[in-house]
Structures are given as C-alpha cells and as structure tokens.
C-alpha cells in the first residue's frame, strides 16, 4: 500500500524547518532520523521513562507517543537547544558537578523536564521536583544526584 506523505513545517531549535513525513511517523523519529538530533532516545516506547522527552510549544511531551503530523506549525525544542553558543545551561553544569548521571542515556529527558520545572517554578520544593520528574527513569539510579543538581541549579539561578 502506498502511504500518503505530507509536508510539515515547524520551528526546530529556533530555525524554521520542513520535513516530508507519513501519518504514522512519530515526532521522535523525525527529530532523530530526519534531523540527526539524537539527544532524545526511544527507550520504553510507552511514555513512562522520559528518555524521548521533547518540548512542543513550551510543554514537555513524550516524543515516542507524539505523531509528527501534529508538529506542523509548532515550536519544537530538544536538549541540543539548552546550550547557547556552546555554553552549557546552569542546569547542565549542575548535572556535571553533581554527577547526576552514570551512563547518560536518560539525561536529556531529565534535563528538559527539570528545565521546564525551573522555568515555571524557580524555587521548587523537594516534593515538587520529585513530582515533576516522577515520569523519568534512570536505570543507574542517580536520583539523589539528580535531586541535588536541580536544587543547585535553582539556587544559582535565583
């Protein structure tokens, strides 16, 4: 069966882009395979682990559960957009200083979720951080270090 393709236009990390996609393609696949942005990764494929986190119109979504067609007209940002001119964000720096990862597979998702949290809630309580990150899994179990990194970034950004 021939699959009808369509062209979507959207803003990706600040730049206008277009892509030819089929209705069943996920946004994660397009970001990775079409645009070569490999920071977001598919792990569980069920929206539970957070490794595929992308920002669409300023809100975190699971890229593996998002159809690419719905990105038409949207603003999409990925973890690659956090550093500006090669300078890491305060949160990224805090992750490094606190050792908030081991293998690093989940890190991009944690970074985007925590960036989202701090943007709307600059002084989150420990419970608020835990709640916002509860949908992100780290199989290396660096959760205590992640908590410290988010708190450290919040202090520095205050």
């Amino acid at each position, binding site marked *: *069966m021939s*699959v*009808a*393709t369509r*062209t979507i236009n959207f803003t990706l990390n600040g730049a206008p*882009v*277009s*892509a*030819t*996609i*089929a*209705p*069943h*393609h*996920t946004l994660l*696949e*397009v970001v990775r*395979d*079409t*645009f070569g942005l490999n920071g977001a990764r598919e792990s569980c*494929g*069920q*929206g*539970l682990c*957070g490794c595929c*986190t992308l920002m669409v119109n300023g*809100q*975190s*979504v*699971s890229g*593996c*559960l*998002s*159809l690419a*067609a*719905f990105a038409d007209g949207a603003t999409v940002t990925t973890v690659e957009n956090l550093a500006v001119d090669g300078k890491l964000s305060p949160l990224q720096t805090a992750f490094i200083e606190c050792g908030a990862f081991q293998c690093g597979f989940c890190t991009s998702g944690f970074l985007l*979720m925590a960036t*989202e949290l701090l943007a709307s809630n600059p002084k989150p309580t420990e419970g608020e951080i835990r*709640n*916002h990150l*509860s*949908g*992100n899994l780290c199989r290396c179990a660096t959760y205590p270090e992640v908590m410290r990194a988010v708190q450290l970034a919040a202090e520095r950004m205050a």
Partner: protein
Amino acid sequence: MNRGNDRLENLLIPFELLEPRTLPEALSMLADDDTAVRPMGGGTALMLMMKAAVFTPRRLVSLRALAPALGGIALDERGALCLGGMATLSSLEHSALVKTHASVITRAMPQLSNVRVRHVATVGGALAHADPHMDLPTILTALDARVQIAGPGGSRELFVDALITGYYETALAGNELITGVAIDAVPGRKAAYIKCTTRAADDWPALGVALSLVCSGGHIETARVVIGAATDRPTRVPAAEAALAGALIEGTTLAAATLDRVRDAVASQVVYTSDAQGSGAYKRQLARVHVVRAITAALQA
C-alpha cells in the same frame, strides 16, 4: 531545509490521518460501523494500543484542531463546572476554577500518570477510552458528572456511570464524540480520591477509591462510593452509599458501626479482578482499608 523520510521506520502501521476543523466535519469523518475508524484526542492511550498492535486503525480523526472550541474550563449559568472534551489533564491540574469547584480533581492530578502525558491527554479521551485503570472516570462518577455527547442526530447527555458500560466499553456509538463534562454545583459536597499503586508511585493503580459526601447540619445526606481500577469499570457501591446516608459526622470520622458497614459493603458487593497490580483478594483488602481513609480525607477536605 526539507528532508525526506527514507530513514524513518517505526512500529506503527500506516493509516489515514484526518484533522477536521469543526465538530460537524469531525462527526462526518467518523463511522458508526467500523472499529478501525477512531477519533483521537491527545492520543497517548491510542498510541500505546497501536504500538502494541492491539489497535490497527484504518483512519484516525484527530480532534486537535477542535481544542480551541472544546478545550475550555468554565462555569455555566447554573454554576456547574464545565470541562471541555479536549481540555488537557494539565489544564485541569492548574485551573483555579477546578480548584475552587472540584478540588478533588486538583488533588488527584499530580499522581495521575506523568507530566508529559497530562500535557497531552484529554478529558474526553479518558472517558471514551474507558480503560478501567484510569483515575479520572472514577472521580467523575463520584461527582455525578454529566457527559455531553455529539452525534449525527444531535446531542445527548449521559452520567459517567451510564457512559462506561464495561472493560474498555462505552455507550458511545462509533460516530459520536464527547464534547464536554459538567459537574453540578452541590452545596456541602466534599469529595476525596485515593489511589493505590503497588509498584511505582505513578504506576497504573491497583485500586482507586472515589467518594463524595453531601454534608448538611453535621450529617451526611447522600454519598457516592466508587471503586475503580480493581474492577472492569468504575463501580458504585450502593450498599456503602446507603450505610453513609444519614450518618452523624463526628469530627472527621463516623461511628465505628457505620464504618464497619461501609467496609463490609465494598468487600462483599464488588468483584475485584486479579492482574499484574495484585490479586483480587489483595485489592479487596486494600478497598476495605482505603474506603475509610477516603471518608476521613473527604471530611477533612
């Protein structure tokens, strides 16, 4: 830049994707007699079913473009809280109106799935999907919420209790859509929802207990007791509701004999299903304990 899609490959099987701009257009694209044609709200649940090949759509009708019209949260002229069918769970979570008029929903939201899913998942989708493990339908049943449904012949309204008829089954025809949910203003009503998860905190619940108590003059006038997740659909427990009706409120609790009757009712009048979240017998015991905690939580609300 424009890139092709030659490298793309995923687990989903191709389908037709339509994005109607208006409700009548959306209704005209649905089919009463073809289960491979489905409307899609946020799509989080359908995507999971599609990836698992449990659902292989021929046509998906995305309702996203209807969100501006059907995504609102407002009070109607009679004071009922109206949630648009395309309102996201996040918009409920952060709504001042919801907090004022149905704070049980606000309190439940942070434990429901995760932030990313709540950003996308919709009220209408949660109801139409009728997955018994979803929390919102159980809560809305306890609030006697009315579901507004549009179809080719006009609109109709059903209580959530009548909408969800079984395990992933609803009274919706294939060419009907949920346009909104209304929660009537009931003076003196207090409500609580307790979710029990047996693995991760944001796992699907093994049990959900939703309860509302209409209180007046130190008494409970009427009650709703609803068991979810452990059952094939949100299930009211009339014997427990009867035990609560007329009960004298003692601080934030009730007489021990009343609580015993409620415990016995939820244990004996409900069929608890066994699954990966726990055995039926275990969930029955969870329900006995948590129904009393829910009563206390509602009276403190």
